[in-house]
């Protein structure tokens, strides 16, 4: 598992039913591209997060396939519909098989 991986997600606490909200996510990860070399000229092996998904109450919002060209500490911003109160779940899939998860509840006014 890559060290110091910390997901951060920004979701409003409340929304009106049927509203559109903007979600911002950031996860600290070095996203080693597999292109860089160390001081001895050896290629540093690729180690990235290759997939991100966001679901709300089991329904998919977005599913992103990420490649080495995504910057360090991958940041994603997108919009979601909130049909009812519930929970957003965010999942990041690491190359090494680790899965990082976080969830945010949202209430409907």
């Amino acid at each position: 598992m890559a060290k110091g991986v910390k997901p951060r997600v920004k979701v409003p606490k409340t929304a009106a039913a049927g509203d559109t909200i903007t979600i911002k996510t950031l996860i600290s990860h070095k996203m080693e591209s597999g292109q860089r070399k160390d001081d001895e000229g050896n290629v540093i092996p690729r180690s990235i997060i290759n997939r991100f998904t966001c679901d709300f109450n089991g329904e998919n919002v977005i599913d992103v396939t990420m490649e080495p060209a995504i910057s360090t500490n991958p940041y994603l911003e997108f919009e979601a519909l909130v049909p009812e109160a519930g929970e957003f779940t965010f999942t990041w899939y690491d190359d090494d098989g680790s899965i990082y998860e976080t969830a945010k509840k949202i209430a409907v006014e």
Partner: protein
Amino acid sequence: MELTRRNAIVMGAAAILAASLPVRGNAAAGDLIAAFTGGAEVGTGDIRLIAPEIAENGNTVPIEVSSDTAVEIMVLAMGNPTPNVATFKFGKLAASRAASTRIRLAGTQDVVAIAKLEDGSFVQTASTVKVTIGGCGG
């Protein structure tokens, strides 16, 4: 072909030449586009790509893709050692077919976004980004 001394030299020289050529993204990018579209024709239309004209640091270039009817958007950096950047698939609860992220660019190049629309057709757009410092190390 018989493995004579001459042939061996020719093959060796060809191999060295092939290995020493800079990795060109374009052929690979063409394959990726074909794999994404399934060989279908790519038109222009309902796809927007917002990228800076000049990026000082190729390590983090903010981009945004959006479309009104896309189900899937693929982003390619044509001049990167590996051209694919990301593929966004929009689910049922995606309020807009838009997303933004930060990408790495190896140098000044075209960034291409290809969208698969709801009707099954494909559209693309491109934007040239000038990069002052490349973002692929080495």
